[in-house]
Structures are given as structure tokens and as C-alpha cells.
């Protein structure tokens, strides 16, 4: 699984994502700077978390218009896999690769804590290692993760199974939705199924020593998706 992690000025989860892919999964991966105008040969592009360009104008807005994003769009148009985590999700909505927008959390707080995520759709390239309905414990760290879409878009995302991860309350943590997201949405995939954005950080929950390895399934899903597509070829 050749992976490219994009580094924007202000990215701060780039090394975490790189670590999980290269050291936990042992896959070839590279880091490239946002000013690059070409991607190395790659199966998966990761847009990492952080505060690209200091969240100036709108979170993800400036990064979405940086030179490398033209190449990321071409990669997505060719059917290449793109994973946007936290700020990466914001970059994906700002660039039009995913629908909707991420508003300020409704409680105005920056939230840094573990949440419960329900796997709504396990028939995607990003979630096939999970069971449908499985509950994952994964951290969030964001101030603007309040997913918003107009009613027609929201209905289509729900109807087409594009809502992949949803915040859910449990007995231990009855709160559930932390930020006011419509329909408790935490992560969506595009209609074609090759671009996924989520606010929680699977790369921070990929090793038991760090408290949870529930997030590793996202990367394992991608690995098995690529292995299976190679078999088909």
C-alpha cells in the first residue's frame, strides 16, 4: 500500500499517520510538502490533522487551494484512495471532494477526548475490517467538526450509505454527539467510494499501548481493499 501523507504548514498529525502506515503496518510511505506539483506513485493519499495555515479564513480553506491539491483531485478522479482525517476532512469539504461543510462546534468548545463511533457502513474501502454496528473508541481533537449539509444532500448521503461513522452514546458515555453534527455524522465517503473524511483520529488509536487500537481497522481495511483489487487485476 504505497501511501503519501501531505504536509501543509500547520499540519501536526502527519507524522502520526506516517508512523501507523510505515511502522505499524510496514507499508511504504512518503511525506510530501503541499507546494509539490506531482505525487509520487501512490495508492493512498492521506490529508492529516492539524491546523493548516493556522485555520485562517476557514479551517481547510487555504490548504484546499494549495498546489498539491490539484494532484490529489486528479488522483481521486482516477479512482485513487484519499483519506482525510480531522483537518484533512475539512480540506476535503473545502476542495469539493466531499459534500457538506464543517461548522464551529455548537458548544463553541475545542474538544479533545475519546468518543464512541458506530460503524454504519462496513462495505467501504475504509471500513471493511469492521463489523456493521461495531462501536469504536477513538479520540477527537477539533473546534470545527459540526457537520452540516443542506437537507437534500443530507438525505442523499444517508440514502446512499455514505455515512460511514456516526457518534453514538453508550452506557459509559451517554453524551454521544459531541459537536452538534447533523444526524451525529462523524465520517462520510463520496459517492464513488474512494474518498473518505472523518473528524476522529484513527491514527491516534492504532496501537494498544496508546490506549486503543480501534482505529487501525481503517488502515487495515485499505490494505485489504488494495490486496483484493490486485488479485482481481
Amino acid at each position, binding site marked *: 500500500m504505497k501511501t503519501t501523507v501531505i504536509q501543509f504548514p500547520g499540519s501536526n498529525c502527519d507524522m502520526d499517520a506516517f508512523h501507523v502506515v510505515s511502522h505499524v503496518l510496514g507499508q511504504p510511505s512518503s511525506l510530501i510538502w503541499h507546494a509539490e506539483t506531482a505525487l509520487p506513485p501512490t495508492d493512498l493519499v492521506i490529508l492529516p490533522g492539524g491546523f493548516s495555515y493556522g485555520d485562517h*479564513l476557514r479551517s481547510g480553506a487555504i490548504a484546499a*487551494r494549495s498546489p498539491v491539491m490539484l494532484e490529489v483531485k486528479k488522483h481521486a478522479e482516477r479512482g485513487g484512495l484519499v483519506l482525510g482525517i480531522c483537518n484533512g476532512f475539512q480540506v476535503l*469539504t*473545502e476542495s469539493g471532494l466531499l459534500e457538506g*461543510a464543517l*461548522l464551529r*462546534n455548537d458548544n*463553541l468548545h475545542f474538544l479533545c477526548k475519546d468518543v464512541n463511533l458506530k460503524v454504519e457502513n462496513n462495505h467501504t474501502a475504509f471500513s471493511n475490517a469492521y463489523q456493521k454496528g461495531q462501536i469504536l473508541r477513538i479520540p477527537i481533537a477539533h473546534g470545527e467538526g459540526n457537520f452540516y449539509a443542506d437537507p437534500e444532500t443530507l438525505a442523499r448521503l444517508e440514502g446512499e450509505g455514505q455515512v460511514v461513522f456516526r457518534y453514538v452514546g453508550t452506557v459509559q458515555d451517554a453524551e454521544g454527539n459531541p459537536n*452538534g453534527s447533523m444526524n451525529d455524522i462523524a465520517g462520510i465517503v463520496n459517492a464513488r467510494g474512494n474518498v473518505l473524511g472523518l473528524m476522529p483520529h484513527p491514527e491516534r488509536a492504532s496501537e494498544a499501548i496508546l490506549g486503543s487500537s480501534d482505529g487501525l481497522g481503517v488502515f487495515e481495511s485499505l490494505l485489504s481493499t488494495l490486496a483484493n483489487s490486485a488479485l482481481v487485476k
Partner: protein
Amino acid sequence: MNYKAKIYVTLKKSILDPQGRTVEKSLHHAGFSSVRNVRVGKFIELELSGERAEVVGQLEAMTRDILSNPIMESVRFELEELVLSGE
């Protein structure tokens, strides 16, 4: 011709503005009890030059494509001619 543009970006009317709501509560606490419908937005100003129609076209494009996100925000701008000293 040189122009100054004043650009106003606010959350769409249909979107709840939690920041505006918080500011409104604070104003009420301070005794400004008749205050309502507080909306907090962004103000951007910039200067540019060209024929007026061309400048308006550029502003329409940049406010729609970059300076606002039409999914969640409304945007409008005002344009004034800049008279440079000595002219």
C-alpha cells in the same frame, strides 16, 4: 481605476450561529435587554484595480470561490473608488 472593496461574510440565516447567541446573552447580562438576532461574521477589505465591470466580476468570483463557503455562508461586498492623493 483603483477601488477598495469591503466584503462581509456571515453564516447563512438558516444556520444557527452559536457565537452570536453567546454574544447576545452577554449583551443581555450587561443590560442591553432589547438586543436580538446577533450574528457574528467576518469583515475583509482589499484594494484592486481595473475597469469597474471587470473588478465587480473578479470580486464576485473571489467571494464565491475563496473568501466564502457558499454551503454555510452568505457574502456581499461594497465597492468604493480610491482617489489617490495628488490626482
